[in-house]
């Protein structure tokens, strides 16, 4: 395991390259968001005239503020429901033998592999007939559906890691199966639950296909979709600065969420459950 100086330099260089490739577009975006509209096309990496006009501008637009509220609301509700349902399904899959279990797992996988774009047309018509077109519900349903396979798969992997004996111990301690699930299994699977929740949240937060197709007004339009409707100050102006600012704004919650839960994900909560 001795790392020579050459190896260290090599790996260091590789890491720097990877970080640069990942970070430059984001830094560029941030830089754009602070540029004055007149200097946007100057090609400089650093904004010469720093301005917060873009940020002030987007928060004045109901298009963006409504979309932000929609995004937060829809993503949170869809994540909560998706993870709650997914946890129960995953627990059943991990612990019980019931008829149709393989079918359930297989169909969950099938949904995960289904291209969302192919469903947009029928859903557009269906949603209008059902009257949930351009509503929160209309977006929460597909988000939940498409994130369920993800949560079922990740969570059942986590539940399988939890020793059977814990539930047996809980049962003998006088817990009902639901109590054992709530008070023993869920706290132990917390890292898994949080990981899943983050992934599901990101999926809902970033989605563009459903958001653009199943909405038509500020009623339920989320930020990624709203970005497409940004206009410049005049019809001859590109809204590049505003879009960059909005993009930065919607990245912030994601960064916060990941930083917040990172420790939970890493923490080995099951330490000491059993020998070993």
């Amino acid at each position, binding site marked *: 395991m001795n790392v020579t100086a050459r190896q260290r330099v090599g790996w260091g260089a590789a890491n720097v390259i990877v970080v640069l490739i990942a970070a430059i577009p984001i830094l560029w975006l941030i830089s754009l968001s602070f540029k004055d509209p007149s200097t946007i096309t100057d090609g400089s990496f650093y904004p010469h005239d720093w301005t917060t006009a873009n940020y002030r501008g987007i928060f004045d637009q109901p298009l963006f503020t409504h979309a932000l509220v929609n995004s937060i609301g829809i993503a949170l509700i869809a994540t909560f429901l998706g993870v709650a349902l997914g946890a129960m399904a995953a627990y059943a899959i991990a612990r019980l033998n019931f008829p149709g279990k393989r079918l359930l797992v297989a169909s969950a996988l099938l949904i995960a592999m289904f291209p969302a774009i192919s469903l947009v047309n029928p859903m557009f018509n269906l949603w209008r007939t059902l009257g949930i077109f351009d509503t929160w519900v209309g977006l929460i349903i597909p988000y939940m559906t498409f994130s369920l396979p993800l949560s079922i798969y990740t969570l059942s992997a986590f539940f399988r890691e939890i020793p059977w004996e814990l539930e*047996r111990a809980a*049962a*003998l301690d006088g817990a009902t199966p639901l109590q054992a699930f709530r008070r*023993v299994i869920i706290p132990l699977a917390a890292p898994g639950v949080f990981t899943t929740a983050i992934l599901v949240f990101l999926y809902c937060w970033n989605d563009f296909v459903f958001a653009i197709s199943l909405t038509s007004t500020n009623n339920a339009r989320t930020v990624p979709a709203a970005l497409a409707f940004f206009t410049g100050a005049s019809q001859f102006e590109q809204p590049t600065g505003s879009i960059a600012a909005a993009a930065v704004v919607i990245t912030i919650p994601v960064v916060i969420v990941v930083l917040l839960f990172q420790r939970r994900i890493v923490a080995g*909560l099951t*330490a*000491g459950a059993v020998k070993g």
Partner: protein
Amino acid sequence: MAEIVLDHVTKRFPDGALAVDDVNLTIADGEFVILVGPSGCGKSTTLNMIAGLEDISDGELRIGGEVANQKSPRDRDIGMVFQNYALYPHMTVRENMAFSLKLAKAEQKTVDERVNWAAGILDLTDHLERKPGQLSGGQRQRVAMGRVIVRTPNAFLMDEPLSNLDAKLRVQMRTEVSRLQKRLGTTTVYVTHDQVEAMTLGDRVAVMRGGVINQVGPPEELYNRPANLFVAGFIGSPAMNFLPATVKGDTVSSPLGDLRLPDERRRRLASNGDGERQVIIGIRPEHLEDASLVGDKRDQGAVFQANVDLLESLGSDKYAYFTVKSERASARHLEELAEDAGGVEMATEDGVQVTARLDAASDAKEDQELEFWLDLRRVHVFDPESGENLTVDTVEGGDEADRQAEEPAKLREAEPQGAAAEPPRTEAGPGGAAEEEPAPDA
């Protein structure tokens, strides 16, 4: 506290495998019963059925007089200690122990009282606010016990609770389990594959083999009057020596010479059939002795010469190994025992190895002839087909010779399983565990 009755209990798995076959066992209120047997003999399944973690396919389970077959684990009010402890890792020791009381909606005052009481008994008071991950193996083991005793359940079930501990700690915890059970007087069913634990802990021991209880009785009874080859070979350490032999009239022709069994044994042997036939004789290592040390008991046994291949001195005794020119005794029971021992071949190239446990005063030497004395009053004769013990009546009280010979056996059965694996019990280790240790047959 309650009596547990297993009435023709059977467990059949969905794939058709019969794990437990028509088990009948009554565990009296306050009794400490050990289920012992090789892995896969159904002992853990039996325990899980009592706990309610496995369904009972057939038969009836009664706890405290009530049929419990359909009761959920929580309604049976039974405490169980698991092999790998199964502590809740996200809760502190206090919360772990209080969990069952909290679920039962006990008052906070009662909860605190009970937890502190249990922690006091188990020496965990200083660790109450720690999480299981910060505890040592022995402490986790005690928390698992504490979780069970806080609520005075109908019975304690223990599933190989000591098997994850290292040898020294195991001896110490063994005495602690025993002391705790005596102090609380709670009905206890304890599953183990370790015959030393079985011999030392239980009021009664049930030896299981292939889903069937082969013999139930107090440890000394199993030791002195094993019902069949399997029990004889499983109980006792070092294991009983088995040799093929032929019965012809009054004499048993064995590789050790022609043996004339005492009248009582001969009579019983004759009552089990007559004529010439193949049998297997079983001799415990301690019933072989250096002939120069037996004194006036000499005429009660047979004397023969053998070359000592290997001599191990343990200080308290000496183990002498010698080879007898013979076929290996073959029987289904013995094959199962060998399988459980990890398939160790008991026969050497030119015969069968026999272990003798000699007095420490013996001056036997390796690679030298020694005159051995065999206590004929303690020789068991088994039927190779059924495995049944032909010389001992296990149902009745047993014969005179057995009772006379019981005393020395008692002292020896508490010995550990091989000196390398465990220190002798009398040196039970730190914390003065040894002096409080109850006698195995107390």
